């Protein structure tokens, strides 16, 4: 629906947009993101010609917008800015109605539009229509800003960091609402932000820009899995470990496979010897069929054990166990909480698969972040 062909823009010696080529599909929520100065806001503003490109063409629905009257063009595109910019001398109703008025809609139509839009954001007409912007909170003002952009039903809505100046709670609820509105009304939204959280949450497609060029155009999941550039990776930052690696990880990814197990028939003194030789303070005890029974600790043996007896009697089941396919984060939390300092990983048939210790967990996480460790 919106196409950029070799668009260039310079300010003096600085290149802001460098032969930009981009396609934006109709009905999608597209987010432009990138570091400061990457050209995302400039790109946005060339769509409604608040900024004119030095060269290149921009097409909306196949029509070259540089050949149109900019004022008329802007009336067909919604525009929302970070500082909101509601007209303080006009009521909420008058602010929303402004573009329909400019387009000479009939009074009843305008009235209807204002009522419907206010309902859309749960700000009933009776309470709010006659208020002035200065009587509203920041979040309410920006909602009205969005409604003002939607009033004449433009197919495209441009938003320039609209929630940047709001507190996190308000920002959160407005993000929800905007996403809902976009889905409901089927608008094409082009949204600029520098907040990756916002982008991942809202976008159908993310366009990552840097130094006036497009680095990658992808859905949030794609971008998380295959960031095309180190700078994108760093932007994604914490999302990376959650998104790709941690999402699919299970307990067995973190465990140590070589585990010391003893059959329950083992005698006490033998166990103590074993523990002293291997320098551990407890042993995993298994049944004849290799299924997990419990653990014995050297302290318990010393306290209650009698020489020559089987250790089966001294088994405790204090140790925490998890199934090998259980969620890695869960296993991690259990590990931290574990009184013994380890978590036993069991197979589906209850045999011992491995052991998660703090060392084994740390090693596995290191590999997840930085790749295979040599040690």
């Amino acid at each position, binding site marked *: 629906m919106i196409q950029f062909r070799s668009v260039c823009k310079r300010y003096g010696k600085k290149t802001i947009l460098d032969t930009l080529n981009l396609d934006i599909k109709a009905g999608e929520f597209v987010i432009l993101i990138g570091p400061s100065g990457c050209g995302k806001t400039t790109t946005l503003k060339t769509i409604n010609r608040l900024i004119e490109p030095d060269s290149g063409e921009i097409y909306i629905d196949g029509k070259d917008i540089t050949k149109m009257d900019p004022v008329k063009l802007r009336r067909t*595109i919604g525009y929302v800015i970070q500082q909101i910019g509601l007209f*303080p001398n006009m*009521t909420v109703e008058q602010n929303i109605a402004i573009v329909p008025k400019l387009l000479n809609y009939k009074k009843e139509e305008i009235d209807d539009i204002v009522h419907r839009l206010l309902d859309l954001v749960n700000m009933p007409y009776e309470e709010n229509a006659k208020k002035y912007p200065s009587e509203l909170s920041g979040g309410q003002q920006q909602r009205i800003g969005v409604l003002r952009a939607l009033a004449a039903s433009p197919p495209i809505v441009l938003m320039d960091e609209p929630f940047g100046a709001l507190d996190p709670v308000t920002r959160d609820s407005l993000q929800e609402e905007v996403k809902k509105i976009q889905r409901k009304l089927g608008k094409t939204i082009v949204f600029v932000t520098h907040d990756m959280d916002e982008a991942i949450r809202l976008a159908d497609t993310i366009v990552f820009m840097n130094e006036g060029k497009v680095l990658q155009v992808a859905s949030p999941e794609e971008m998380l899995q295959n960031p095309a550039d180190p700078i994108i990776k760093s932007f994604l930052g914490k999302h990376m470990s959650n998104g790709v690696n941690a999402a699919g990880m299970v307990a067995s990814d973190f465990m140590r496979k070589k585990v010391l197990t003893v059959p329950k028939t083992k005698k006490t003194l033998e166990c103590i010897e074993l523990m002293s030789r291997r320098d551990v303070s407890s042993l995993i005890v298994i049944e004849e069929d290799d299924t997990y029974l419990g653990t014995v600790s050297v302290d318990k043996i010393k306290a209650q054990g009698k020489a020559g007896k089987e250790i089966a009697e001294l088994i405790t089941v204090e140790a925490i166990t998890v199934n090998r396919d259980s969620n890695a984060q869960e296993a991690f939390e259990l590990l931290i909480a574990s009184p013994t300092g380890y978590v036993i990983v069991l197979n589906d048939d209850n045999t011992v698969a491995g052991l998660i210790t703090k060392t084994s967990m740390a090693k596995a996480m290191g590999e997840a972040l930085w790749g295979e460790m040599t040690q």
Partner: protein
Amino acid sequence: MTYSEFLAKYSTDIWRAFFTHIELVLVSVGIGVIIAVPAGIFLSRHKGTAKYILSIAGVIQTIPGLVLLGIMLILMGIGKPPAIAALSLYAILPILRNTYTGILEVDGHCIEAARGIGMSGGQILFQVELPLAMPAIIGGLRLSTVYIISWATLAGMIGAGGLGDLIWTGLSTYETKFIVAGAVPAAVLALVANAVIGFFQHILTPRGLKLGR
């Protein structure tokens, strides 16, 4: 003669002077507004020129009223027209400056939003900028009116009439009553005009600007 006898004798003169004075003020301030408001709008679009013009206008403001009246007297002769010409020149600066700053002080983000949603330059001017600059513009009008009422008292010097005429008669004949007959109405006129325009300034300020957090 007592005051009441004086008033009885000269009441027509006093009323005539009063109305002439008002006439001079209204016409001059009117001309001032007609010139200064569009000029102020123009300057707000051409800030470079604005600096020069406002400095020059500032210097003109320091020229004593007597002087401009005198110059107009020489150029145009005696009577009301030269007085109006001189007074109009004085009326321009406060309105010009206030229109200019008033428009410039309108929140730039509102203007950006207005452009972005597709308002033309003219629509932005009349629906956003002027309404928001209105308190400042009327403030300028108020200042201007008070100045002109004051300088118009000198108009009598060049034969234009007005309350200054009475004051001058009083000064040159050492007749206190004439002085009072001229000075007191002039003072009252100025104070009332100031209050009335102040009142209009208040009611014409768009509601949205007065309310709020």
